[in-house]
């Protein structure tokens, strides 16, 4: 059987501020999570929404720990970070 890819989708939603992408990317780099693709936009006038595809193959951290670390990195900002296995999206959006 093909080895399962450990790809995750990270979403960051909340109030726009300077430095969000930098903080998230730095934390991911510290934990050896490799960013594959990144997409960021401002919804309406001020809602920041970032979706990001990354590979956690080289990281030892479990998904809940990654979620906690990323939320910790932006803790003083009004943001919510969620992390999910990319297979969830593959199943739900691709036939």
């Amino acid at each position, binding site marked *: 059987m093909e080895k399962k890819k450990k790809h995750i*989708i990270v*979403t960051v*939603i909340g109030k726009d501020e300077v430095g969000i992408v930098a903080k998230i990317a730095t934390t991911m780099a510290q934990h050896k999570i490799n960013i594959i*693709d*990144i*997409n960021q*936009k401002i919804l309406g006038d001020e809602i920041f*929404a970032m*979706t990001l*595809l990354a590979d956690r193959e080289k990281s030892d951290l*479990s*998904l*809940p720990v990654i*979620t906690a670390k990323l939320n910790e990195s932006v803790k003083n900002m009004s943001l*919510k970070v*969620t*992390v*999910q*296995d*990319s*297979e*969830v*999206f*593959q*199943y*739900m*959006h691709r036939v």
Partner: protein
Amino acid sequence: MKFSSEEILETVGMIAEDKLDIRTVTLGISLLDCADPDPAACACKVREKILAKGEKLSEKTDFVANEYGLPIINKRISLTPLSLVVPVADPAAFIEVAMAVDKAAEHLGVDFIGGFTAMIQKGVTAIDKALIAAMPEVLATTRRFCASVVLASTKSGINMDGCYTMSRVMKETAERTAEQDGIGCAKLVLFANPVEDNPFMAGAFYGPGESESSILVGVSGPGAVRRALQNLGPDADLGQVAEAIKKSAFKITRAGELVGKEMANQLGVNFGNLDLSLAPTPAEGDSVGQILETMGLAMPGAPGSTAALMMLNDAVKKGGLFASSSVGGLSGAFIPVSEDASMITAAKAGAITIEKLEAMTSVCSVGLDMVAIPGATSAETLAALIADEMAIGCVNNKTTAVRIIPAPGKDVGDFVHFGGLLGEAPIMAVSRISADTFVKRGGRIPAPLQSLTN
């Protein structure tokens, strides 16, 4: 990127805001090899088997939930109907085995375990009688063990003696748990045409045709369906509404398929089936009644409710079937009164009555579910209510169920409070017109015709 931002945000929103979740991962365990005429030995074998098969259920469920970032709410177990496992016609034997089952469930951290079940649609055996005699005691003294009795099927008709017996068991069970508003009855389901691989409690049991052990997954997401309809707006026609429901159901089912496959893989058992049922909880937004409201009814129970529910139930099945080849169980919409905020409001306002609920159950899963009625309702009236619901299942070749709570000392205008997932409900009025003579005739209503069904 492989996925658009819109797709990603939709899924994240479904989970975070619309409470899309894997409602239950239920491990089915066959107990057919645990039969023993010595009750103590039987209890021991049953306990050992549950503990051995279920040992990793909790740990693996948490692992899978964490691994995918998908919430899994309940871990449960369903068992072979106990009437096929305890070969002694003695209520004490059933009580002894039931206590062992309850303890094993507690040890494994499982909140409900199903299978205190007898199948008497055509008639009773001495063993069935013993199981039913033990039922009030078991429901009053165990916390987790759920009971069910099959009273009717399309192929055998309706066992009216069984309906009458079970109405008295219900009343006794309610009395035995009177200090908690008769909560024992919330763990007792009466069935016509039950499915043997239902993952949802309280009516789950693991049928004798199932494999040694398998994973049964129940997914839910009334909030996600409602959101899809809200996005559609009030001008969309009903064809578009049905289409939107199908698409949501598809996505929700896919999430369940992913979890089911992985759970089966982790536990080394078969993936038995996936049951996509819109099962409400008392939490705000997690409501089937609100879907009907979003469709355009002022409250569930309004004229049009049966039509709206038929469309919802059908569209959910169509979306689900395309999403997984393991669809089974009940797969439809549930309308339990006490567990759905919008249904509770409608019942309080008098918008929904038992009679309207009964009509609605002819087009959806499952039946008169979590309906509280006056404790003074006679056993004969209760038996007649049960028979009506069985008739709907029988003639429509579908599952119907009755989970009614005759709340001791309560009357119309009062409330029952069960707490947690079981919620709360106003006492609903029951017709005072007598059916005594009809019920007391007893016997069996013959199986209905399968053709010329106009």
